[in-house]
């Protein structure tokens, strides 16, 4: 896929203050996302990981601080221009009722279209490739609501792929999927960084999957980044305790060689 043209050299959040109108969820957070790698954000519920992802995707405008691509604030770039650089798969994307799969994927081309150029050759190629990469060729003309959860998630990813952005943000892309589909989706994303050197940032709930697929791990708690770096370097039982308040033993995954976290039964009093 053609994403070589304006490949970003840097992607970061600088001194971000984030809130939904109420109390601040994130205060003064600075984060640098390594390009052309998979970054996974982990942390307990309510730690601000989805909030951070929304800010990076400019859905949530920071009350202070800025999100930068190539050291330029994305707020001061045209929204379509930014949409050609970064795309997001939200946690619960909404679809219009009775929509056909290919129709939905085609809508991902919006930032590349204009009032006159509605269906260029590039559009067609991008959509065809997105559908075949996600294995949806046979479902292209089917209504979305006839598909299973896993297939539907692939459709949303296909739409994100059709957008052809060098940076892809995904908010819990594997939630509600069984283990086979979780692996399938994560393998697909991994292949994408390898083959077309994309920058991927995602929030994952499953700690072990996160550790296995992440090249860069960001662990958050209470709106702060507690630790970040290569999973093999940063995942320790101390770090798991710091972030999730659980006792865990870390062993090495015999298959992937990545750290594997085994939570220990908690003998202390529950609250």
């Amino acid at each position, binding site marked *: 896929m053609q994403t070589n043209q304006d490949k970003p050299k840097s992607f970061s959040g600088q001194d971000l203050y984030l809130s939904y109108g109420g109390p601040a969820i994130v205060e003064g957070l600075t984060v640098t996302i390594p390009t052309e790698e998979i970054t996974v954000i982990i942390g307990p519920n309510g730690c601000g990981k989805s909030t951070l992802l929304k800010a990076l995707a400019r859905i949530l405008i920071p009350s202070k601080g800025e999100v930068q691509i190539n050291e330029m604030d994305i707020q001061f770039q045209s929204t379509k221009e930014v949409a050609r650089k970064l795309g997001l798969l*939200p946690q619960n994307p909404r679809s219009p009722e009775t929509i056909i799969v290919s129709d939905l994927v085609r809508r991902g081309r*919006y*930032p590349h279209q204009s009032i006159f150029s509605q269906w260029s050759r590039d559009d067609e190629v991008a959509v065809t490739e997105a559908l075949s990469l996600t294995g949806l060729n046979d479902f292209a003309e089917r209504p979305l609501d006839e598909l299973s959860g896993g297939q539907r998630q692939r459709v949303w990813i296909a739409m994100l792929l059709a957008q052809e952005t060098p940076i892809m943000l995904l908010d819990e892309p594997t939630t509600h999927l069984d283990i086979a589909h979780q692996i399938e989706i994560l393998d697909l994303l991994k292949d994408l960084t390898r083959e077309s050197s994309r920058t991927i940032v995602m929030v994952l709930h499953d700690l072990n999957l996160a550790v296995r697929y992440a090249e860069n791990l960001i662990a958050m708690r209470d709106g702060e980044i507690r630790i970040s770096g290569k999973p093999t370097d940063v995942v320790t039982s101390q770090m798991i305790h710091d972030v999730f308040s659980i006792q865990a033993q870390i062993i090495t995954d015999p298959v992937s060689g990545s750290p594997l976290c085994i939570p220990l039964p908690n003998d202390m009093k529950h609250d």
Partner: protein
Amino acid sequence: MHYLAITTPTLQRSLTVLVAILITVISVRLADKIRSRSYTFRWYKVSGRIQLKIVWLVAGTLVAIIVLLGTGLIVGDYPIPASRAIATALWDRNGEYDFIINSLRFPRIVVAILAGMCFASSGLIFQSLINNPLVSPDIIGINTGAAVLAVAILAAGGNIGYLPWAAFLGALLTAGLIYLLSWKRGVSATRLVLVGIGVNSLLGAVITFITVKYPIERVIAAARWQAGTLFGASWGDVRTLLIGLFVLLPSAFFLTNRLRILQLGDETAITVGSRIERDRLALLAVASLLAALAVSVVGPLGFVALIVPQAARLLAGSITGGVLIFTALLGGFFLLGADLIAQRLFAPVMLPAGVITATFGGPYFLYLLARYNRAN
């Protein structure tokens, strides 16, 4: 007299309905056959995609409208032979039927088509934008807003000449009020509907108040107007509608792409580069103007904006520019058909067209509600 004896109104009536049903069935069948094949055109930087299915649906509806238009010219209290009726409408300005055809029937038919187009396209935009098939300008209070000012003028015995302007203004003010009341760090679709329904009942109460307060003979005129009627439609009305449609329909057409993006929800829409509040405001404005335009000419005719887009999307699928055009034409066909039935059903007593659209629309709406409830 002799002519009347051969073709009783009953026969004419059933023929009209039969032809309309036949044409609809045929075009649906054709559309089903063609399925989702599409044609792509590219010329320098200009490119686009047309679904062949939509082309057929549009063509079919156009033919149906023309057939209904011809029928409308011929059928009436004063029977006119088909060849004479069509000749008079198209070129013969000196024939004996000139007044009936060119001053009464023809403008009324064209007004029905154009007003139907306005209502249906407005309804389609509202339904697609709010992602709810049970929403239309008449349900969220825009028609009622028009009615408040119009009824006030009629009941107070004001100048009838101001009626269309009052209705137009009323509709727009209401749309603006609903928009402002539902604003809270942006406008959400659900809030818009809820606020709209509230405003609708509030304005309904105002109308009741006016009708109770003023003398009965004036109130009757107001009640008649409120049902929505094409009685007395003139070429002046045609001109008003044409000018309005000429501006609004292309705007709506070019906004459909943005609408398709807004349908994906705010988060996805922002990430693919939509300026959501600006686009949503533009679409609401165009849809409200379309409804206001139609209401100002034919009154708050209900159900066209609600059920025609429903039927259109069932046949044609999710909104595109092509689907918008098809929906508009289907609205024209539906209102024209409804008006012809309203005129002929209890001839020589003429019903307001709104009675017919409500007769068809009411049960259909209930059916939709039932289906919607079952689905959820």
